[in-house]
């Protein structure tokens, strides 16, 4: 696939920007944000202020940095080699995200396969159960032998979670239709289906929030509900955060489409966000199967 637009012959030289303020702004922003978060967690009075300031700086950095890249892209200073670098960079970024989720899936599988059965006295761990937690019988879901957080109920897979699965899978179809429309030069279809995609994304986040509220209010399922609550909320929570970020990115891409950015052959940003969207989709499928269903 040729990604450079043939009507604007790009330069043969690999584009190396001369200097950029955004990395240092980003570093200061990250530092301010995590400093603020530390202060918040340590109950220092200045926490909320510093944390908010950090987030504002982060937003400024993203807007400025991506703004520069969009300007350069629209001025066609990127040749095919630069485009390939961006593609590879995005792919490996998504791979790092996959590994981040793997840590939490690893925790889930470890708890279900090892730590909970061991606490129940499985195999050579008879005395663990007999001496420490004699009344505990291994089962899943569980909040552990000390019943941390009190009795709770779980969210059945084939209620809201199944609807959310349908929503995300549909959004995977709509973004593919939008991509084909972009490649075919059909801007109307592109704008409509891209809008449908991020609207489905926000709908997913809304329903997820609804589910959380129900879990906390009706089911007594909280982050503190032992290992089930821990894995449930951390996995679905980080996933929900990624969907939110993805939906915001889709919105930005949509606004760029409305401004007439991208051509049938030159639309790396669109594809990068589409890859990211499919990634959160796949993570959700794993969540649906291993967290909600099995």
């Amino acid at each position, binding site marked *: 696939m040729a990604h450079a637009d043939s009507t604007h012959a790009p330069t043969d030289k690999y584009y190396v920007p001369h*200097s950029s303020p955004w990395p240092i702004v980003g570093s200061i922003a990250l530092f301010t944000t995590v400093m603020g978060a530390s202060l918040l967690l340590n109950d220092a009075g200045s926490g909320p202020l510093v944390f908010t300031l950090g987030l504002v700086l982060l937003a400024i950095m993203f807007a400025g940095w991506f703004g520069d890249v969009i300007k350069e892209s629209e001025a066609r200073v990127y040749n095919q080699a630069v485009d390939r670098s961006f593609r590879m960079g995005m792919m490996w*970024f998504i791979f790092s995200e996959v590994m981040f989720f793997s840590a939490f899936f690893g925790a889930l599988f470890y708890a279900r396969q090892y730590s909970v059965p061991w606490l129940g006295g499985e195999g050579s761990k008879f005395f663990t159960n007999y001496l420490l937690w004699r009344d505990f019988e291994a089962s899943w879901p569980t909040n552990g032998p000390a019943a941390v957080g009190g009795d709770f109920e779980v969210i059945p897979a084939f209620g809201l979670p199944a609807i959310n699965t349908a929503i995300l899978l549909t959004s995977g179809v709509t973004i593919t239709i939008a991509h084909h429309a972009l490649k075919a030069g059909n801007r109307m279809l592109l704008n409509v289906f891209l809008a449908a995609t991020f609207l489905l994304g926000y709908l997913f986040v809304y329903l997820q929030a609804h589910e959380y509220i129900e879990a906390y209010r009706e089911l007594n399922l909280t982050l503190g509900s032992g290992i089930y609550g821990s894995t449930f909320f951390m996995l679905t929570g980080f996933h929900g955060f990624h969907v939110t970020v993805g939906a915001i990115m889709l919105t930005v891409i949509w606004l760029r489409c409305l401004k007439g950015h991208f051509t049938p052959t030159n639309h790396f940003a669109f594809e990068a966000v589409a890859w990211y969207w499919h990634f959160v989709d796949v993570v959700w499928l794993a969540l649906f199967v291993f967290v909600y269903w099995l």
Partner: protein
Amino acid sequence: MSTVHTHVDTHVHDAHDHGPAKGWRRWVFATNHKDIGTMYLLFSLAMFFVGGVMALIIRAELFQPGLQLVDPMFFNSMTTMHALVMIFGAVMPAFVGLANWMIPLQIGAPDMALPRMNNFSFWILPFAFTLLLSTLFVEGGAPASGWTMYPPLSLQTGPAFPMSIFAIHLMGASSIMGAINVIVTIMNMRAPGMTLLKMPLFTWGWLITAYLIIAVMPVLAGAVTMLLTDHFFGTTFFSAAGGGDPVMYQHIFWFFGHPEVYIMILPAFGVISEIIPTFSRKRLFGYDAMVYAIASIAFLSFIVWAHHMFTVGMPLAGQMFFMLATMLIAVPTGVKVFNWAATMYKGSLTFEPPMLFALAFVFLFTIGGFSGLMLAIAPADFQYHDTYFVVAHFHYVLVPGAVFAIMAAVYFWLPKWTGRMYNMKLAKTHFWLSAIFVNVLFFPQHFLGLAGMPRRIPDYSTQFADWNMVSSIGAFGFGFAQILFLIVILQSIRGRSGVKATDKVWDDGMPQGLEWTLSSPPPYHSFEVAPEVK
């Protein structure tokens, strides 16, 4: 370009026509791989001394039995911070700095593939370490649970806890961005004709290292995030009462931790594979085997993690698997050591400082490898676990291993970077002092460990007194010898050491990579037109 008149357009011309920006902007807004590489290397040098001072505090306390100098809690903070600073502040950034400087030169690229992100990954580090080091001054002191941060002990850390966790997040983000840049640069920016199996071994070592970094740094981020939520938000990942398991932390941590130690040694293998052929005036013996050996070691690093935790109580099958998989690593590592030896065989050897450090690396890293084999034997490890034998082992692979390789690389490429030869006599003095004192420092720790002295303890039984005294003398000798390193580098940077370096620097025949076709120092923008590689 003349058809597109935009603000950005003029900007583009700037990018190629100008030299470095003036003043602080050159460094703070940097996008040039050489400038960013220099910043990485200088930052790492600073952290090397910061971590070194912490090590000397540890060794000063251990000079004699009894509690002399520091509070035990502070002693534990020192062992924790020394490790974090040296691993994430000194060794890893040094290799990223070398990658920044050398990979574009070695593959004939104009710069790193993603220059702005390159600057971001560097500038995160000073902030991350400001955050980490500032924990020394908060109430309750710096983290003192060891760099591995095992719960439940680490969960008892005071206000320093979230700061150190977030500092680790930032370091991880920096490493991941650096690694993505290395992979994309190597996979996308090679000069025409530079096929993968023509790449210099330093570049190869780094390519494989970068894959390791992207695969495991996010896992560390996940592990410390679970610590954070266990501490502050009531999750029970690592608490048996809630159905979790403290041992689970160790599994997740060492799934990161074992590849991490190879992240610190694979680029070192690459460096040594560049230096030994140069000063033997021979081609590297078994180039392909060297590449496949690095790849095999990287693969194996993912399936050996539980050898760090044989004593936690693992099923027998698990112990057997992790013991045998660990021993398997000796095979590709042996391939490398024998290939280095075969490269030197019948070569016309000379012993300039880089070669001295490379030779010391081969001998002393191998000692560290052998003690690693001893530790891999699960039943024997029950005796060695958490003793000074482990400390001796990993310091042998990290100090005369990774750190010597970094010094070898600096002495190898410094004339290329600055355009001037350095003070050879001083550098050789630095080498001999380092090589002697590093053994005085760490060899006795094998004896201490086998005799049963536990690690991370500020006081010890009197039967350990003599070898601890010897070790501490070695530590101060090694520490002060590094001041010579600083002097040699500063002299060379300021052009005080005289002789101008030629393009080939060492010998007209042997260093054969693309970096030696450029002037010394290379132009600010090199390989804007890709060279042809035959």
